[in-house]
Structures are given as structure tokens and as C-alpha cells.
């Protein structure tokens, strides 16, 4: 399979890349930091990836995304994709710096939607007729990393949460739209993950490792799960969180 990873330097993406490399897939990695990407690619090759291509660029700019996806289309299409880039918005700064807030939305929301939309369209265009031989494969699935933070705007991180809420909604719609065209969308909703992005935060009992989240993503993609809470314990937790009446929720400093 050819698998595209956007935001390949993120901890979760790196862990997923290792799994796919070990399974002997072909990988196309997008990110911003070229030297990091080269290291990740080298690692994937040693671990068994058939071929790894690396593209460093402005992965949150529309022009870049469009040309990148065009290039993928003419180079034999894509079977699966993971959209993993993101930035944990600094709430204090977002409150006083409108440009920063807008940029964060571009990173966490707009650009992820654009990648998902364009990749989905490309995959649909490359659609092959369903035959006996390819029916069982796991191809043409896109996993998009959203967050449980998008389930409810909270006192402490609603700028980040809002972007992820938008992304979750976009993925729901895209999934419906792409259903008849044979492209599946997995919305991944991790809780707190032990990554450099959260290194300053306290590790609680619910903190998951990037490796376990990555394993969950690969399984969800293969099973064509719609929405994957990772780990699953976040599903009941968020069900409760969503059920708290707003007149109470608005008083919580969480």
C-alpha cells in the first residue's frame, strides 16, 4: 500500500510510520522540518518500508497542499492517509493576539480540512472498480487526528477545542459525502498523549503513549471505524462531559 502521512514529525505519526514500515508499505511523508523528516524516513527504511519519499514544505498553505496532492495523483495515487499535524494552542496568547489565534485555526482546522478534502477527492478519482480481489483490502481510508478537546468548549483550551470541533464536524460530513465513492474517513479522538507537545503537562492515569494511540489508529483504519476514541475510556468520559448542562459547565475552570 502507499500511505501518505501529513505532519510526519508528530509523535503519533512517527509511531504509526514505524508500524507501517514494519509491515513493508510505501510511505510518503510531509512535514516542515526537513532534517527531522529525513531521519524519520531513514528509520522507516531500516524497519522495512519498501520505499519512503519525503517532502518538506509549508504543509498548512493551500497552494502547497494543492500542488502536493496533484503530484501524488499523477504518481499512482494514494491508498491510505494519516493527517496528523497540529499545535496545542497557547490559550493565554490566543486571547491577546488575534493573528496568532487565526494562525492556530489555520494549522489545526483549515489546513487539515483542505488536506482531507483534496486527498479524498484524489482517492475517489483513482477509484478502481470493486472486484473480488480488492474487496477485502483496507485501501482508501483517511485518518484525521482530531481531539476529545473538540467535544466541548472548555475554560482552559477552547481555542484549540474549537478548531478540533470544526475538524470533527468536517470529517463527519466528508465521510458521508465519500461513502458512495468508496473512500472512508476515520476521525481519531485521542485524549492526553505523552508527546513533546504535552511534555510540560503532568502525566495522569489517562495519559496514553504515542505508540498505543498509533496502534489504535492503524486498527481503526483497517476496520474502517468511523470515530475512534483513543484510548476507548474517553468515549464514556466525553459522553458525560457533553451531558453536563451549560449552566453548570460555564462555572467550571477545567
Amino acid at each position, binding site marked *: 500500500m502507499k500511505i501518505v502521512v501529513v505532519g510526519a514529525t508528530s509523535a503519533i505519526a512517527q509511531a504509526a510510520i514505524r508500524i507501517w514500515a514494519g509491515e513493508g508499505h510505501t510511505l510518503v511523508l510531509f512535514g516542515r522540518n526537513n532534517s527531522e523528516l529525513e531521519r*524519520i524516513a*531513514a528509520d522507516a527504511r*531500516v*524497519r522495512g518500508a519498501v520505499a519512503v519519499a519525503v517532502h518538506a514544505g509549508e504543509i498548512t498553505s493551500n497552494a502547497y497542499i494543492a500542488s502536493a496532492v496533484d503530484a501524488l495523483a499523477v504518481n499512482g495515487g494514494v491508498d491510505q492517509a494519516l493527517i496528523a499535524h497540529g499545535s496545542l494552542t497557547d490559550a493565554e496568547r490566543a486571547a491577546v493576539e488575534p493573528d496568532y489565534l487565526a494562525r492556530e485555526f489555520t494549522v489545526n482546522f483549515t489546513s487539515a480540512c483542505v488536506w482531507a478534502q483534496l486527498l479524498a477527492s484524489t482517492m475517489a478519482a483513482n477509484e478502481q472498480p470493486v472486484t473480488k480481489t480488492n474487496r477485502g483490502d483496507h485501501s482508501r481510508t483517511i485518518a484525521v487526528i482530531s481531539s476529545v478537546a473538540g467535544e466541548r468548549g472548555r475554560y482552559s483550551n477552547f481555542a484549540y477545542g474549537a478548531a478540533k470541533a470544526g475538524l470533527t464536524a468536517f470529517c463527519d460530513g466528508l465521510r458521508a459525502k465519500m461513502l458512495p465513492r468508496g473512500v472512508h474517513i476515520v476521525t481519531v479522538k485521542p485524549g492526553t498523549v*505523552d508527546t*513533546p507537545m504535552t511534555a510540560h503537562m503532568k502525566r495522569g492515569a489517562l495519559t496514553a*503513549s504515542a505508540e498505543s494511540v498509533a496502534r489504535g489508529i492503524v486498527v481503526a483504519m483497517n476496520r474502517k471505524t468511523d470515530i475512534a476514541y483513543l484510548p476507548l475510556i474517553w468515549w464514556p468520559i466525553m459522553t458525560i462531559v457533553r451531558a453536563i448542562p451549560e449552566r453548570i459547565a460555564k462555572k467550571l475552570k477545567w
Partner: protein
Amino acid sequence: MTPVSLDQPWGRGFNVEHNHAFARDSELPTRSFLPRGLGRSYGDVCVNDSGVLLHNFRRDRLLDFDEVHGVLRCESGASIADIAAVMVRRGWFPAVVPGTRFVTVGGAIANDIHGKNHHVCGTFSRSVLAMSLRRSDRDMQIVESNHPLEDVTVAGLGLSGVIDEATLQLDCIPGPGIKQDTLLFGGDGSIDGYLSLDASSQAWPYTVGWIDTLDRGLRGVFFRGEHCDGPDDWLTPNTAKLAMPVDAPQWVLGRWSAKAFNELYYRAQGLKSATRETIPLWQFFFPLDAVAAWNRAYGKRGFVQYQFVVPRAAAREVVPKILAHLRESNVASYLAVIKSFGEYLSRGVLSFPMPGVTVALDVPAPNERDRRALDRADAMVADAGGRVYPAKDARMSAAMFKRFYPQWERVEAMRDPMISSSFWRRVARSS
């Protein structure tokens, strides 16, 4: 691979305050720091109280592998566990592995670790073809054979700089199995039985013994093994299904439970004395890894390990004496690991192994009396011309350290001025 604790070493029980930094790129902390791997050292060689720990476990990429010669270049935070998991299926294995696979390459170099095959291939550093070293006071150094920083980086306890990448020579193996012999020895209060089994097993690449330290007769079990093929489902280790969920209460580990444990173990082995079997290599090398965080079995107050080596000529006489001393002083322990080192001398000036016999035993939360008993054992080791292993230590005195490692000042002279550790402040201070 992530550490069990970002603060505590494997032996736990420390009261420490750290700031944490995570190695990502070429930046080093701007305050005094200590590089850290997976924290599998038992004591304070991986502790830097009131300072910064620069965690290296995320720099774990495998960068290049030469399939023909078995040469692997990797970032120094790569673990033996990860390297083995990737390489065993291709017929390669790290040349030297410790009793747990959860150690980083950087940590393996900085303690110059040894394995069950020391008698045929020496320490870990012998399989290191090159390494790069980052220091706060100079450009990146490529440290190869005979580089002036080699002797103080191998077994350098992290003090000479941050090992960034390493190039390792792996061993070619026929498959994921180990052909293992289990034999019994001892009972007469000497280690002669061990020594003669060891002498007749020199052709075996892996040898090690377990001794019941609470038994006056010093009965024990000898294991020898060699690589062989095995079924495909041995290619990867079983991930730890058991985990020690809570700290065990202190009394569980008293002397009597230790004795019961030994008795049980010895019986189980005794029933099938002198067996030959083929087992997965993971089980042979890393039997304890099947229980995650088993160090919690020792309770909150933790434990240290006492590992010493004495020269071969003295071993026959001195090892039983030291074991008797520790038994009589009630320094409780389950069992001791005994291993005869080969003739290889490492370049590292603080490298622990020397031609002779080494013994390692766990000591749960030593109290004042235990400490005095261990100090006395230190003196017996030093008088015999031996030494104690810093990677397992949390207690040896500065004076003893300097007797064990008379060349320690070379490490102090080449130390990165920004790097220090609790261990180093403890043993290198003027006494």
C-alpha cells in the same frame, strides 16, 4: 520506549527534585544537566538531584543498516528492545545485551555494560564502531578508536558529553531460539562447582550462574546457551502481560520470604536437573522483562544491587567469604547472579569488568546496619584487587570509589563542565 519513571532510578527510594528536558535537536540545556536513557541504572548514576535531566529516550531512530555486514547506525536513545525486535527477524542481534532489554544504546555505552557472553566478546563498547558526542564547550565530536574522548566516554557515566549517534556491529544469529543447558552446582560452601562448570563451558557463547545466597552450601544453578533457530512466533517478544500494579508492603521482602523464594526456586530447578531445552531468546536473556515495573516488588523504599568483581586468582577464596559475610550480616537477598568475565579489557577508564568473577545481588532498602555490612564487603573487594559496579550502586563511599577506579581523575578532567550527576558529586568529592 518510555521510562517507568522520569525521576527515580530503577532501585527507587530516592528523594529527588529534577527539572526535565527532552533531547530533540542539537540544543543542550543551559543549566547543569545529566543525560539520561531509560533510567535502568539502579542508583544515582542516572540521578541529578536539583538539576536537569536531559531525557534521550525519544531520540530513538535507526538511521542506517548494512544488511551484508550487520552494521547499524542509530540515535543513542534507541533501545536494545527496539533494535532486537527489528533485527532478530533479519538474523541479527546486539553483540552484548544486559538482563533487561529496556536500556538505551547511550546508557549501554555510558556504563559499558556486559552480558552473559563477556568471556567471548567483552563489553558493549567493543561492538561500538563509532559514536558522535555533543558537548557544551566544543563542536560535535566523532569519537572513533583512539580518540582522546573515547576512554572517558565509554563507561563515562554520561559525564563526557551527550552521546548522539552510535554505529554498532551486530551479531549474526541463526534464528530466535536459544539452546539452553541447566545444570546444578555447589552445596559444599565453595564456588568450585561453579568454576569447573564455567571452565568446561568456555566454548558456549553465553554462561551465567544463580547462587542461593542464604544457603551456607552456596548451591546454585548454572545456565549455558547458544543461539539456534526457532518457530516464527518467537521472532517477537511477548509484551509484558503482567505488571506490578502496586508497591508491595515491606514485610513481604523480609529475609524469610526471600529464603522461601530461594527454596522454591531451587526445588523447581532441581527436579529437572541437567536439562537441555530450546527456548525463545527473549526468555533466555530477559526473563524479568515479562513483569513490567517489577522493581515495585521491593516496595516504596526501593533497593540497591550490590555487584562486585574480584580477580580470577582471588575469586575462589574471596567470593565465598564475601557471600558468607553478607549472609551473616542479614543483608537479605533472593539470589545472586554469578558470572566469570573473560580477558578483555575495555578502554573505558571507569569500565567495571576485569578478568575475574563477578557477583550481583539485590539488597532491599538497606538500613544503617546493612550499609555498614556493605562497606565492609567493599573493603574485602578492594583488598582482593576488585571493584564495585557504579551502574548498580547508590552507596559506595568516595574513598572506596577512588580505590576501585584509580584513574577517575581522567574522567573529571575531561568532564563536560555543564554535566554532573548525584553519583559523581558523591564519589568524586574530596574526601
